[in-house]
C-alpha cells in the first residue's frame, strides 16, 4: 500500500535529550493519551525510526519469493498431485493492530494456493497456528485469509483453528537432547509439506518458533514457556541471547529430523501503524513537528475520548486497522529465511542508545497480542510493559538493574469473560496469594493447565488456554526480578496493587516515588513506543 506521492526517505530513530525547548511528550494511556513534561537536563526520549518505504508490488514480491526461495527448491517444485499440503499461518495476535485488507496472509495464501492448484494438489488444509491462544472467530479468519479462501475452504472444514487439546490430533515428534518434547498438530505432522505463513512484527517472531510453538500444545511449549527459560532470555527479542529461541531451535532440529518438510515464508511490515495522514497520524510524528492541524486533531481526539464511556472508546480503538506496508518477503529454509527477516526487522526497529538509565518510562497503548477485539485486562498491562516493551532491547536493558519502570495505563479491573476466563481466576485467586512467578508456577500452573472447564472453553469457545495467564506472568519474570520497582500512573489503584505494583496519580508523583528507590536526580529515559522501536543499548 503506497501513498500517491513518493515519500521522502524515512529518518532513522534517535535519542532526544530533553531541554527547555522540548514540548510535552506523548504517552499512550490505554484508549487515550497523556502529554507529560519530563525533567530537563536528565531526561531523554527514544524515538522510533520512521516507517520504511514499502515494496511497490507486494504480490509480485511474494511470487518472486516463492519462486526464488533461499536454500530451498522453488515452491512449485515441492508440489505434486496427491500430496498432503498444509498451510499454517500466524493467528490474530499478529500484526498489532490488525492490518487493513488485504492482509499479507491473504496475499501469500492465495499465491500458494494458485501454485498448488497449478500443480494439481487437492488435499489442502489451512490452519490458524494459534497454539494455546484463543480460537479465531469466522470474521477474524475471513479477515486474515480473505473472502475467496474463506468461502472456498471454511464450509468444507478445511480452514480451521489449531486445537492443541485434541488428543487424537496431536503427536509427539520426539524429544531434544534437553529432553524437551516436540509436539505438533497431527495434520501438519503427517503432511508432505507444511507452508508456514508468518508476519514478523517484532524480532521474536518467526524462525522455528513458528512451527515448534505455533502448531504445538502445552506438552511442547512448557519446555520453554517457564520462568527459568524466560529469566535466561536477555532478551527474548534478541535471538542470539534468548534461551526461548535456543529451545525452539532445538525443537526445530527434531522437526527437521522427524517432522514434515517445512517451507517457511516470512514477511516484514513497516511501522506505519497510524498512517501518514488522517486523524491518528499525529501519533507517529515527533511532538515539535506537530502542525497546527496535528495539534487541533489531537486536542479534538482528547476531548472526544474524555466524553466517551470506556466500552465505546474500546470499540473505536479496536476497530482501527493499520495501513502497514510490506517491506520484505522471503521464503525457503527456516533458518536462512529467518536470518534475512531479522535483519529487516532490525533495520526498521533498532535505535542506538548509549548507556542505561535509572528510570524507564513508557506509555502503554490499548493493545497487546492477546486482546485484539477484546479487553486489555490488568495481566495484559503487566505483560505489555514488563514482557514486551521492557524486553525490546539488544545488549542490555535500557534501565539499569534495580531501576524503576514507570508505565501509564488506566489498568481497569476488567476482563473479557469469553476470551480470558482463566485470567479472571488467575487475577482473583492466584495473584491474591502471591506475585512471585516461581511460586505461581510451582503451586498453580498444573491445576490451571489441566482444568477441564478451561480446556472445554479453549476448544469450543474463544478462550485462551487455562495456562495462558501464567505464560503472561512468566513473560515479565525477567523484568520482575531485575527492576527495583514498577509504578503505574493513572491506573485503577486496586488492580495495580494486585499486580504487585505501585499506583501513582501523576507522572510527577511517580517520579518522586521512584527517587526513593534509585536516589535523587535520577536519569530518565522514555521509550516513544508505539510505533515499535527496539533499543540497541551500548555502554
Amino acid at each position, binding site marked *: 500500500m503506497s501513498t500517491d506521492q513518493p515519500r521522502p526517505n524515512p529518518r532513522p530513530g534517535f535519542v532526544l535529550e530533553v531541554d527547555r525547548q522540548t514540548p510535552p511528550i506523548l504517552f499512550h494511556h490505554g484508549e487515550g493519551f497523556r502529554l507529560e513534561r519530563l525533567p530537563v537536563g536528565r531526561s531523554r526520549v527514544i524515538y522510533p525510526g520512521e516507517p520504511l518505504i514499502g515494496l511497490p508490488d507486494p504480490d509480485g514480491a511474494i511470487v518472486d519469493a516463492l519462486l526464488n526461495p533461499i536454500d530451498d527448491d522453488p515452491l512449485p517444485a515441492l508440489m505434486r498431485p496427491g500430496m498432503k499440503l498444509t498451510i499454517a499461518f500466524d493467528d490474530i495476535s499478529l500484526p498489532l493492530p490488525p492490518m487493513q485488507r488485504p492482509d499479507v496472509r491473504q496475499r501469500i495464501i492465495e499465491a500458494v494456493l494458485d501454485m498448488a492448484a497449478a500443480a494439481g494438489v487437492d488435499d489442502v488444509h489451512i490452519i490458524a497456528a494459534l497454539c494455546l491462544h484463543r480460537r479465531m472467530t469466522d470474521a477474524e479468519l475471513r479477515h486474515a485469509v480473505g473472502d475467496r479462501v474463506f468461502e472456498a475452504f471454511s464450509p468444507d472444514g478445511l480452514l480451521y483453528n489449531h486445537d492443541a487439546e485434541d488428543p487424537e490430533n496431536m503427536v509427539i515428534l520426539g524429544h531434544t537432547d534437553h529432553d524437551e518434547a516436540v509436539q505438533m498438530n497431527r495434520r501438519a505432522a503427517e503432511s508432505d509439506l507444511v507452508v508456514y505463513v508468518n508476519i514478523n512484527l517484532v524480532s521474536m517472531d518467526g524462525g522455528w518458533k513458528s512451527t515448534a510453538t505455533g502448531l504445538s500444545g502445552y506438552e511442547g511449549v512448557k519446555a520453554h514457556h517457564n520462568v527459568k527459560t524466560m529469566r535466561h532470555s536477555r532478551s527474548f527479542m534478541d535471538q542470539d541471547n534468548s534461551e526461548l529461541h535456543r529451545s525452539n531451535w532445538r525443537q526445530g532440529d527434531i522437526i527437521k529430523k522427524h517432522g514434515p518438510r517445512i517451507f517457511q515464508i516470512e514477511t516484514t511490515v513497516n511501522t506505519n501503524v497510524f498512517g501518514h495522514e488522517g486523524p491518528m497520524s499525529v501519533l507517529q510524528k515527533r511532538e515539535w513537528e506537530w502542525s497546527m492541524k496535528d495539534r487541533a486533531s489531537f486536542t479534538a481526539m482528547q476531548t472526544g475520548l474524555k466524553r466517551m464511556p470506556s466500552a465505546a472508546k474500546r470499540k473505536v480503538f479496536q476497530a482501527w486497522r493499520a495501513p502497514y506496508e510490506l517491506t520484505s518477503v522471503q521464503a525457503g529454509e527456516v533458518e536462512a529465511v529467518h536470518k534475512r527477516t531479522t535483519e529487516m526487522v532490525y533495520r526498521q526497529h533498532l535505535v542506538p542508545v548509549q548507556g542505561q538509565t535509572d528510570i524507564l518510562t513508557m506509555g502503554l497503548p490499548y493493545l497487546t497480542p492477546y486482546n485484539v477485539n477484546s479487553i486489555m485486562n490488568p495481566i495484559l498491562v503487566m505483560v505489555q510493559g514488563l514482557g514486551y516493551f521492557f524486553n525490546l532491547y539488544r545488549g542490555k536493558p535500557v534501565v539499569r538493574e534495580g531501576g524503576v519502570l514507570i508505565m501509564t495505563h488506566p489498568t*481497569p479491573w476488567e476482563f*473479557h*469473560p469469553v476470551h480470558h476466563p482463566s485470567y479472571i481466576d488467575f487475577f482473583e485467586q492466584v495473584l491474591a496469594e502471591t506475585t512471585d512467578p516461581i511460586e505461581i508456577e510451582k503451586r498453580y500452573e498444573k491445576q490451571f493447565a489441566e482444568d477441564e472447564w478451561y480446556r472445554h472453553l479453549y476448544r469450543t469457545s474463544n478462550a485462551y488456554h487455562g495456562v495462558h495467564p501464567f505464560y503472561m506472568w512468566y513473560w515479565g519474570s525477567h523484568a520482575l526480578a531485575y527492576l527495583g520497582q514498577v509504578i503505574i500512573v493513572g491506573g485503577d489503584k486496586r488492580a495495580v496493587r494486585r499486580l504487585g505494583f505501585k499506583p501513582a496519580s501523576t507522572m510527577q508523583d511517580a517520579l518522586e516515588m521512584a527517587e526513593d528507590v534509585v536516589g535523587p536526580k535520577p536519569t530518565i529515559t522514555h521509550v516513544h513506543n508505539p510505533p515499535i522501536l527496539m533499543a540497541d543499548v551500548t555502554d
Partner: protein
Amino acid sequence: MVEQSWSGRYPEVMIADQLAGKRIAITGSTGFLGTALVERLMRGVPDCELVLLVRAGKRSTPAQRVRREVFRNDAFDRMRSESGTDEFWEEVERRVHVVVGDVGRDGLGLDDEGRRLFASCDTVIHSAATVSFDAPIDGAVEVNLLGPTRIANTLNELGVSPHFISVSTCYVAGNRRGAAPEQLLSDSPFHIDVDWRSEVTAARRSRADADAQSRSTGQLESFRKRARHELGAAGTPLLSARTEQIRQRWVSDHLVEAGRARAASLGWPDAYAYTKALGERALDESKGDLRVSIVRPAIIESSWSLPTAGWIKGFRMAEPIIISYARGLLKEFPGVPEGVVDVIPVDIVVNAIAAVAARGHAGNDDIDITQVASGTRNPLQYRRLVNLVSSWFGENPLYDRKGQPIAVPAWSFPGRGAVERRLNRIQRNLDVADKALKMLPLRGKQAMVNAEVEEQREEVGRAVGYVKIYGAYAECEALYGVDNLIALHDALDDADKAEFGCDPAIVDWDVYVQQVHLPTVVQHARVKTTGERSDPDARTKRLRKRVLAPERQLAAFDLENTIIASNVVFSYAWLATRNLGPADRVRFTLKTLTEAPGLLALDQRDRTDFLRHFYRRYEGASVDELDRLGPQLLADHILTKAFPDALRRVREHRRLGHKTVLITGALDVVVKPLAPLFDDIICAEMTDNDGVYTGELKAVPPTGEVRAQALRDYAELHDIDLAESVAYADSSSDLPLLDAVGFPVAINPETRLASMATKRGWLIEFWSTAEGGAAKPLPLGPLPSLRRSRR
C-alpha cells in the same frame, strides 16, 4: 464486688433443723424460681429429700431434663466446687427423686411409683406456672388456674395431707392503686365475683372458636396470601406448610389477645395475673382439709447474693426491655416516674418459701398468705431505676456493629398510650417499606436493605409487645403489704436471719441495679460490650469454609442468577434473533418488551406454568440448528453473563471431590454448553418430532418442590447425604431446594430470600459478571454477517 450480706457458712439453724428428714415435692423445678429453690434446699437443708415433678421433654425423659436443666445450671457451680463433682452427683442421686408429672393434666399424670413418692411427701411446693405474660388463654388456664386445684385434688385422693405451698403472684390483686394486703382475694373489698369454672369452660371453648374462625374461607385465603408474600413462588408444599404455620400462629395470637382482653375486662394487667388469681380462688374451694400456704412474689429478678450475686436463669421480663433500651431501639417506655417498680431478687423469694415450709401452716383453717415484695418496705421508684440504668449504660455502653458506642436515649416517662401510638406508627412505616421493597425486583446487596428493614421491623414489633405486656406493670401503683413476710423474717433466729433472711430491706438498689443486675443482663444478652472492630467478613469466611469443607458430598446449583445473570427469556431472545435482520430485531424486541410485564407476573405466580407457557415458543425450532448454535450461545450469551466466581466455585467443589449438579428449569439445549462444568445436569427437556421441537416438555420442569424432589432422588441414587451437601440459589422459589440440604447458600438473593437467609444464618454471596462483559437489556444474537444478509 458486691458485699455479701449473708455468709456462706452453715451452722445448725432452725430452718435446716425443721426440714431435716423431710421429703419435699417441688413442681416447676426447671423454671427460674424452681431451680433456685432446689439449689437453696440442696445446699441449705442437707438432710431433706426432694421429689421433683417434671414433664417429659420432646426427646428427653424427666430425669434427663432435670439433670440438664436443673443440676447442670450454673446455680450449682458453687455446690459442685464446694463438694467436688463426683460427690455432688452422688448427693443428687441420693437425695433427689424425679417423677413424671404434669400439672396440666388431671391426676397430674402420675404413675404408681410417682403416686407413692408424692404421697410420702411432707411438703408440696407448687411453683410450676406459665409465666409468659402473653401465653394463650387456654394454656394459662390449664396450668395457672387449674394447676393448684389438681394438686390439691390429687393429694386428697391419695388421702394424705402434707403442707401445700402454692406460689402465686402479688399481681393477683389486680390493677389498682393503694394498699394490697396479704389476704385472700375474696376478703378484698375490690373483689369481683366471677365463677372460675365458667372461665375454664370459656377458655377451653375459645380455642375451638378461634380454630373454627381460622378455617373460614376468607381467613385461609389471607393466610395463603401472607405466605406467598413472604416466600414468593416457593412451590405448593412449602407455601402450604407456611400457610398452616401462619394459621396456627394466628389462632395462638388470637388466644393471647383473648386472654389479655378478658384479664383487662376484669381488672387484671394480663392473663397471667388473671389466671393466677382465679387459681387461688379455685384452690380455696377445692383444698378440703389440706393445710395451704400461698406465697405471692412480685417481679422476680436476678439474685441479690445467693447462690451467687446476680444469678439468673433465662432471659426474663425486664431484660429484653433493658437491652432494647441500651441498644437505642426502645427510646421510651411507659411508666409513672414516682411510681414503684416492685422488683424482688429471687433469693429473697426462695428464702421466704423455705421459711414458710419450715414454719408450716400458719395455724387456722384458712389459707395463709405471704407476699414477697419490696414496694412498701424498700421501694424502688421508677425514676430512680431509670436513672440507675441510664447512668450505668452511659459508663458501660453497648457497641454497634461498626464498633461505635451507642448513646442511650433520655427517658421522658410518657404515658402508655403515647408510646404505643408512636411505636405503632413506626411499625406501620416499616411495614409499608417492607411491602414496597418486596415488590421491587431487587437483588444482591440492594436486597439486603430489605433484610435490614425486616430486622428493624421485628425489633420494633418486639418493643410494641413489651409495652403492651409490661407497660401495665410499670404503671401499676398497688402497694403490696408484707406484714406476714416481715413477721416470718423476724421469727427466724439470728443465724437463720443471716442464712434464710427474707426482709427486702436488705437490698441496696443502687448496688443491686448497677453492680448485680445490669452486668448479668448484659452478659446473658451476649451483646457487644467493647469497641473492638471484628472482621466484618469473619462470619462469611467461616461459613464459606464450612461450605467448602472436604467432607461435603454434593453441591447443587441453580442456573439463573446463580451462575449466569440471565433467564429463559434472554436465552430464547438470543436464539430467536440469531437469524433475524435489523428490522425484524426491532420488532422482536418491542414485542418481547410489551409482553414482559405479563410474563413476569406469570413467573411470580407459578414457575412451572410460566416455563410451559414460554417454551411453547420453541415450537417448530430445528433440533440440529439449536444444537449447532450451542458453542456460540456459550461464548456469546452464557459466558458474557456468567459470574466468574460461580464458575470457579463449581470447579472448586469438583476439585474437593464433591459431586456437582446443575438443577434448573432452563432447557437442555441452553444448558448443554455448560455440561463439562458439572458432573450432572437436571433440566427441562422438550420433546421433538422428526428433528423439530414441539414446544412441549417431556416432564414437569425441575422448579420449586420438583427440584427438591429431583435432588433427593439424585442423592438417593448416588448414596449421598443431603445433610452434608450444599445448594446455591438466588430466589425464594428455590427454597425447597435450599431447604433440602444442610448447607444452603444464597447468591445475590432477591428481597425475600435475603431476609430469610439473614434470619437463618445462611452464607450469602454476592457474585457479579466480569467487568467489561456486555450489558445489553435484551441479549440479541449477533447480526448475520453482511454477506449473508445481502444474499
